[in-house]
């Protein structure tokens, strides 16, 4: 009952967020300076042809009508036609790039989640000692660096000084990502560095809180061996908040992708979004930003549900609280 209520509340909120965000994105693009029709037809267009195009694109309709029209198409899966690349349906290029980005994000995830959880827990257990100081400083430094800075440092080290990996992550024409998996490594590592700092520091502090709690003291003074206390008593309580944070930050990760993909020229959602801005490709921009929001909302929702499920304090309602 409790769970179901939370589930439907969260689901409702997720949909609300998407609706509000889509409207905001739509509004934002509306205020973009310059005339869409002009952009499409170029500077030499005649006033008549401009007017005709505006009419055919529905640009003269009231705002809400256009929003409804746009959102309706979106729900049906029609992302519209690119403005910059005339005649190309966004659907035909968009999903392949989204796929690339998801693969990149997952690769990064596979690197940083175990690494940062492990080192975070380790630093938390060794709090105040040398390993903790080293891990904490390293985390602080990598967390502070923008993705492109760590990317440049990685390129200098592993592509120029030691020419192991490619400087750019471009997929040659006619090939697919699967044939060029080595291009994933440096971009994924750049993301890993930033996320490592963030997540490991979170993990360290939550581990520290748990290790200083009364129930851990009670477990140790019950004569349980230290390793057992850490694994059986501390870890579950200490991992729960961090896992939540990782989930909630999936959206953030996609923000970071824009920078990384731009640096490495990786053909993904991020570089697509940036080029949509640069070329003022309205439908493409709307689709990209909305998709980033969608990823965030969905991952938040999943994390929230997971948290509910893993936390006995919520799963089993108290008899007297």
């Amino acid at each position: 009952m409790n769970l179901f209520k939370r589930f439907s509340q969260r689901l409702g909120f997720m949909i609300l967020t998407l609706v509000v965000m889509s409207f905001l994105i739509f509004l934002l693009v509306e205020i973009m300076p310059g005339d869409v029709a002009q952009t499409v037809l170029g500077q030499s267009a005649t006033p008549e042809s401009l007017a005709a195009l505006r009419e055919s694109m529905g640009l003269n309709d009231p705002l809400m009508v256009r929003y409804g029209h746009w959102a309706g198409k979106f729900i049906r899966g029609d992302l519209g036609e690119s403005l910059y690349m005339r005649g190309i349906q966004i659907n035909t290029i968009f999903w392949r790039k989204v796929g690339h980005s998801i693969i990149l994000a997952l690769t990064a995830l596979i690197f940083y989640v175990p690494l940062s959880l492990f080192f975070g827990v380790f630093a938390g257990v060794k709090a105040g000692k040398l390993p903790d100081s080293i891990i904490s400083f390293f985390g602080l430094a990598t967390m502070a660096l923008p993705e492109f800075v760590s990317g440049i440092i990685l390129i200098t080290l592993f592509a120029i000084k030691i020419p192991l990996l490619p400087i750019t992550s471009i997929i040659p024409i006619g090939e697919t990502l699967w044939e060029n998996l080595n291009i994933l490594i440096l971009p994924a590592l750049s993301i890993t560095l930033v996320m490592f700092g963030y997540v490991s520091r979170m993990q360290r502090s939550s581990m520290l809180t748990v290790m200083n709690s009364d129930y851990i003291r009670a477990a140790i003074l019950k004569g349980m061996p230290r390793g057992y206390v850490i694994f059986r008593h501390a870890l579950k309580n200490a991992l729960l908040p961090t896992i939540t944070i990782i989930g909630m930050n999936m959206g953030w990760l996609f923000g970071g992708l824009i920078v990384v993909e731009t640096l490495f020229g990786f053909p993904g959602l991020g570089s697509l979004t940036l080029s949509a801005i640069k070329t003022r490709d309205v439908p493409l921009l709307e689709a990209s930003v909305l998709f980033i929001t969608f990823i965030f909302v969905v991952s938040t929702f999943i994390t929230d549900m997971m948290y509910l499920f893993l936390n006995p304090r919520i799963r089993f309602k108290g008899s007297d609280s």
Partner: protein
Amino acid sequence: MKNKSILEIKNLDVEYSTLTDKVVALKDINITVEEGESLGIIGESGCGKSTLSYAIMDYLPSNGLSNGKILFKGENLLEKSPKEQTKYRGDRIAMVYQNPYSSLNPSLTIGFQLDEVTMFHRGFSRKEARNASIEALKDLYLGDAAGIVRRYPHQISGGMQQRICIAMALLCKPDLLILDEPTTALDVTTEVVILDIISELKKKYNMSLIYISHDIGVINKVSDRIAVMYRGEVVETGSQHTIYKHPEHPYTRALINCMPRSGIVKEEVRLNAIPGYVAKRSAAETGCPFVSRCEKKTLICQENYGLKESKANHFSSCSRAYAEDVPDKERTRLKIPLENNVKEENILSIKDLYKYYGGPGKKVRALDGVSVSLERNSVLGVVGESGCGKSTMGLTVSGLLKPTKGQLIFDGIDIAVSWRKRTPEILKNIQLIFQNPGRSLNPSFTIETIIGRPMKKLLGIKSKTERRKMVIDILKKVDLGEEYLSRKASQLSGGEMQRVALARAFSISPDLLVCDEPTSALDVSVQASVLNLLGELQQESKASYIFISHDLNVINYISDYIMVMYLGRICEYGRKDEVVGPPYHPYTEALISAVPDVDPDSAKQQIRLEGSPPNPTKKIKGCPFEGRCHKKIGKICETTAPPKVYFSDDHFVFCHLSPGKLGAK
């Protein structure tokens, strides 16, 4: 013939190093606990009681350093490797903590946390361990043991959680059980049950106990011998009888004398307050730890002291102060003149007051129809266990909460509204004293600003110099000097902070003061002086008090009238002497019997209440106390609300029982 000793602590010192300096937590502790003996350790907060228990477990914070010997059955625990330590902890020496809820892992079932103890120490299989756990729970009279093991800690009540913690400590039948304030977080009626169980199990398993508490009444119930600690030192040890009847150390005497207890009332005596407060101890300090607060001090106190055996089994670090003195506690008390109590008009009438929290379906009935009046120039004590609605009543009177329905007639005006709708005149006339003085004074402001602000706001005194003069005057009344003007709250001790709070309230001469547990956060030695001050200020200003406390002894000391509450309703109301003596409501009777006695020789009849108060979200048709009442008649208690029965003009109870059954003569 001496018994074998289980634990011998020799010359134990513990120091904490902080960023700025070193603080002495324990100094030269020498304690022996014999087989089957129970040692009570008493002291105020900051006296090193808890540090001592963690030092025995060799579990100090990383900035703590211990020095000395802790011999457990002849072996020095401080020299053990971490691996050897696990063999003692939880097996031979077990511990129970103050806060049961935070001592249980929230994400593991109770059964798991119990089972692992025997699985590790006894090598039991999962099944054997589970059986042992269930047996241990039954030892503690936990009914549905097989059901409890499958639950999580948050699903059971505080009293049950503490029983589980005790069961966990007893799983391996330890030689020594350390209990660190195990009942402080619990209500008295729960406390008394747990204390009984502890004494019973101690006999059953012939364990040695170390019982730590700030409450001498509690210590009396469970210990054979008492050690008094002050600022990191044991200043006196002896049997509980010796400590109470023939205390030698000035601190022990002062501590016993400053406690409110049954039979001590403001009309007859003033409490003996100890000046000053428990200060932190730096490494450089030498001499008697009590010297700065001691009224018997001489030059000798700086050098010549240390625990000496004055009589058989009675050790004291100051045998000089009272050597020639008759140990008469009453003599040291001041008598104050009895005031003729004339019946006065009512200043406040509460009529049918209700306060519900939460939304529909989950409505918590914090106040469920309370009607009571308060006379001018009198003190109404409101007593009850946590959740009985006493604080809610204080908050509605002071205006912080708006009642759901009902009337609050103050000076002829209905003030059953929130503070926002009250006139400045009323705001001025009703003042509130909070439980936690540290949180009631804004840490960013000086004392002058804190006390001056209500004068400016509610009395309209604009001139700063005039205000300063008034602030100095009022500070004098609460025994604080001019030097406090520019200090901030964080630079004061708890007692000083509460004095400032009192000064703030009295600076604008209110007619009614609501005191919400004003001394609960203070040490007993400080509590006495604040209670005295409250009494003096009341007599001088002729203001009325609503004095809310969970401590019946304090209520009994300060009040003229007492109201006993249970689950948002009144059980009993009357003049003080009428309420604390028979005939009384069964709940009042249980409450009085549960209060631990300061005098170890007092033999009081014990009433054990089972269970805990019912869920306040449920609508109660009959008597709220019916589920736990030891005098329950039958069906009528469950179905019909009890009638209001008057024993005298201003003494009534809500109960179905006839006055004769309630103890009337």
